[in-house]
């Protein structure tokens, strides 16, 4: 790919990425949303976070891995407990990373 064509590619990627990011932010403040739509939008954040993270935990390599051999799934358990009990984002991330590190054994070199 020539340099000019590469710049064109990145500009195209930028345009199709930016438009969905920007359109609702610029448009929605001028539209009176019905109550049901507002309620729907209130459910969206947790739903999309879950829809993104559950496949990453249960099928980290694209294949389902529900057992003890899946460190993502195992590390999720203490992370969930810490998040639930402490409601601390930093604490959950540190505990999750530490448990995952121990489980994957990369600390041994």
């Amino acid at each position, binding site marked *: 790919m020539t340099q000019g064509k590469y710049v064109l590619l990145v500009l195209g990627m930028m345009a199709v990425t930016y438009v*969905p990011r920007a359109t609702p*932010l610029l448009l929605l*403040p001028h539209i009176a949303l019905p109550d049901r739509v507002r309620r729907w939008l209130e459910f969206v*954040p947790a739903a999309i976070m879950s829809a*993104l993270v559950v496949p990453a935990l249960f099928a980290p390599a694209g294949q389902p891995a529900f057992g003890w051999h899946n460190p993502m799934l195992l590390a999720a358990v203490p992370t969930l407990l810490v998040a639930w009990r402490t409601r601390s984002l930093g604490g959950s991330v540190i505990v999750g990373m530490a448990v*995952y590190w121990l489980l*994957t054994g990369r600390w041994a070199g």
Partner: protein
Amino acid sequence: MRRLANLRAGMRAALPIVLGYVPIGLAFGALARQIGLSLWQIGLMSAIVYAGSSQFIAVSLLGAGAGLLTIVATTFLVNLRHLLMSSALSPHLPRLSNRFLSLLAYGVTDETFALNITRLRAAPLPAFDILGVHLTAQTAWLLGSLAGGLLGNLIPPGSFGVDFALPAMFICLIVLQVRHRLDVGVVVLAGGLSLALMMVLPGSHYVAIVAAMAAATIGVAIHDAG
């Protein structure tokens, strides 16, 4: 001075995202270098496209010799989920000028969205706090990509548990979002649907958005019925 303090608060809040973005950026930069992109080409993509998973896919497609239109169309599909995120974000944002909103729109990613919406639903946030999160996350992504392109993947996958930084952040942010029993139901449904759809339709890039929209719709239906 108030604006600077708010910006700093946002930069501090973004720390978990930085932990996740730097190693993924390194991996992206190293991969992009492998398929023959130069440092400025890597930096350009990370600076103005700034969307992790679509950048990985774009670089893989480039390496496989795909054409410009294929890559742009795939990028559109992969990043369409941000439409849903910006829509959910919009009612919670303070009154802002179009210029400021256009600037904030650049920084909407899965991770900045998850962090900001969770905080915005708990209490109103100053606009510069949100901007601080966006600037910090984007800087981490850009510097990570450049370092990866320059030096290769400095942090091999798995070290220090960095692979788990973003999943752990999402888990905690989901917990912080859940207020009622119906919320738990919607979370379980969205996750289960997304996993099931991913297995039935491997390689589709819009599974998460479909699962989330379906779960939210069922949530509203149950709420309105009860």
